């Protein structure tokens, strides 16, 4: 079955540095991959989508890469700010019906 793995340990970085989060998956070749941000007690919020034929996608301080050979996506936040502190989830649509399977998320803490 499909397995999605994200860094289970929290990532602590200093304000201004670049945060890099990893998402690895097995047993599937998704057409696209999505990244969400979730704050405590709130619903996930969509950030970025990257398709299998795209190597990289950018949106303001966010950058996502997608390596279908390695079965891995990297999520970067440049010039990080304390307000970026949250849990970041990667998600795959295995059936092209919109049903997303989520990774367990990586909690990012940006210290001032």
């Amino acid at each position, binding site marked *: 079955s499909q397995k999605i793995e994200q860094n289970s340990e929290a990532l602590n970085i200093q304000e201004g540095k670049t945060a890099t989060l990893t998402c690895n998956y097995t047993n599937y070749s998704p057409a696209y991959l999505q990244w969400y941000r979730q704050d405590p007690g*709130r619903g996930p919020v*969509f950030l970025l989508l990257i*398709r299998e034929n795209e190597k990289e996608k950018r949106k303001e301080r966010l950058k996502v890469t997608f390596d279908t050979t390695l079965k891995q996506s990297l999520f970067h936040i440049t010039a990080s700010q304390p307000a970026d502190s949250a849990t970041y989830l990667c998600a795959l649509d295995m059936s092209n019906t919109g049903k*997303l399977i989520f*990774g367990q998320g990586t909690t990012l803490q940006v210290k001032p």
Partner: protein
Amino acid sequence: AAGVIQSPRHLIKEKRETATLKCYPIPRHDTVYWYQQGPGQDPQFLISFYEKMQSDKGSIPDRFSAQQFSDYHSELNMSSLELGDSALYFCASSLRTERNSPLHFGNGTRLTVT
């Protein structure tokens, strides 16, 4: 812009009771999804509806049922509640015709079973 609205925000029930959670999707969105998120866990897909018909089913217990109504709002009915049902329940909506459309989540209903 209008977002996904869920009610109630918090719900406390006792074991063996019944609960009904409601979801109002973003206007014009044709697909609704229900997810369950336990403490420290990732959201787990329960069930989805497209144009008021069930389109996909995940790890939803037989004690739970859901439907989507003519006005596109959806309800998740949970019976014979167990302590393990305590979780955050999220509803999300999307527009299927929008290619690779992201899901728009509500802020969830926190269900506590005592």
